[in-house]
């Protein structure tokens, strides 16, 4: 074993983290190796110096600390998670949709290879409409949460979302967009708007209160909910 490994073990030995065998191995090496022996003595000195220089911890102002916490936590006002955002429902719906879309794509190549070069749509218009409607149903509660986001009244609202749920929605968006490009290109800009919103939501970090406001603006500016409402009715 090289001396570097033993130097690592010296530190672990001084913290009492080596077993009997490792400890004996280290001691044998130290007896033979001048460099490691010196390193062992010096590390021991450093540990002693660290312990001697240990500071007495000051007493905190506990009352001030509690008041700081107290002002930031509202009593019994935690927002309840929307039942529509329950991960198991969204996972199930997302999986179904992905299976459906992938099935349609592979089915086309398996059963209708001759039509490959034609510009005929892979999925019937009705199936596509259904898939889109299901997708809108899934994404709508999230958009509504952000469209109603408020942080100015002092009570910071927290939108609890599972990252995997958002990522699943992004994948669905990608797949749907791919089909829509061929079947209904006029919808592509709308799907791209949804893609931007989802990406912002997916990249959101904890404690970030600016991005939710930007997402809210984006939803309002591009009239995403309004357009979605119309598309669902058509």
């Amino acid at each position, binding site marked *: 074993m090289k001396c570097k490994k033993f*130097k*690592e073990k010296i*530190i*672990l030995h001084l*913290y009492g*983290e080596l077993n009997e065998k490792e400890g004996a191995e280290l001691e044998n090496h130290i007896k033979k190796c001048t460099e490691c022996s010196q390193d062992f*003595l*010096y*590390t*021991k*000195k*450093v540990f*002693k*110096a*660290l312990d*001697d*220089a*240990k*500071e*007495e*911890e*000051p007493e*905190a*102002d*506990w009352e*001030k*600390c*509690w008041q*700081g*916490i*107290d002002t*930031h*936590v*509202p*009593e*019994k*006002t*935690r927002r309840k998670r929307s039942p529509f955002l329950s991960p198991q429902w969204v996972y199930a719906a997302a999986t179904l949709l992905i299976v459906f879309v992938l099935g349609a794509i592979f089915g086309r190549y398996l059963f209708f290879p001759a039509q490959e070069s034609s510009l005929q749509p892979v999925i019937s218009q009705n199936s596509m409409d259904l898939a889109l409607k299901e997708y809108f149903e899934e994404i709508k509660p999230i958009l509504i949460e952000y469209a109603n986001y408020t942080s100015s009244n002092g009570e910071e609202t*927290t939108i609890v979302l599972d990252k995997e749920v958002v990522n699943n929605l992004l994948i669905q968006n990608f797949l749907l967009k791919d089909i829509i490009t061929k079947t209904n290109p006029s919808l592509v800009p709308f799907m791209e708007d949804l893609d931007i919103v989802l990406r912002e939501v997916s990249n959101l970090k904890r404690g970030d209160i600016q991005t939710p406001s930007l997402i809210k603006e984006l939803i309002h500016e591009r009239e995403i909910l309004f357009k979605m409402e119309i598309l669902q009715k058509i």
Partner: protein
Amino acid sequence: MNEIAAIKLAQEGNKEALKTLFEENKKKIFSLAYQYVKNAEDAEDILQETFIKVYRSLHRFNIQDGMSFSPWLYRIGINCSIDYLRRNKRKKEKNSGVNNLDNISCNNKTSDPEESRGQKEIREKISQSLNKLSGQQRMVFILRHYQELNTKEIAEYLNCTEGSVKKQLFRAVSSLKEHLKGLILEKSYEM
């Protein structure tokens, strides 16, 4: 109020229950934060951030799954400390000299002026050396040396492998050894 009852009530939004949890754990989190940032006011800020996060994340804490509150809280405290220092690093670097010297003079217990000066120098060097470490390395060293957790526990708290903890500990101690070289060799520390 026992801990489980306090957790359940705090999950429902009861502030008194949260205060009970705060009272029971405040010293442990403050100590960790103080060792990490070496400044009482910053440690108080970290303590507050930790409990605000605890309150907001309590719905994810599942008593039925046999989760233990103390390690869960400790993990939040560790993350808050690392995040806090990362956020305030530039500010800290600017003021580090002044703050460290302030702390040193305030907390010095020894009456011998010669010894006092020596410890002051060593503390300053330790502080400088710790400042040069990455957040993770610094936390590993503090958890091992001052909080006296073993490498396996540290790995669990930091969500990494034990091997990685050992490597980071080696780097942190090596850096300290390098920085303290002149001082330690000048002084004859008894073995």
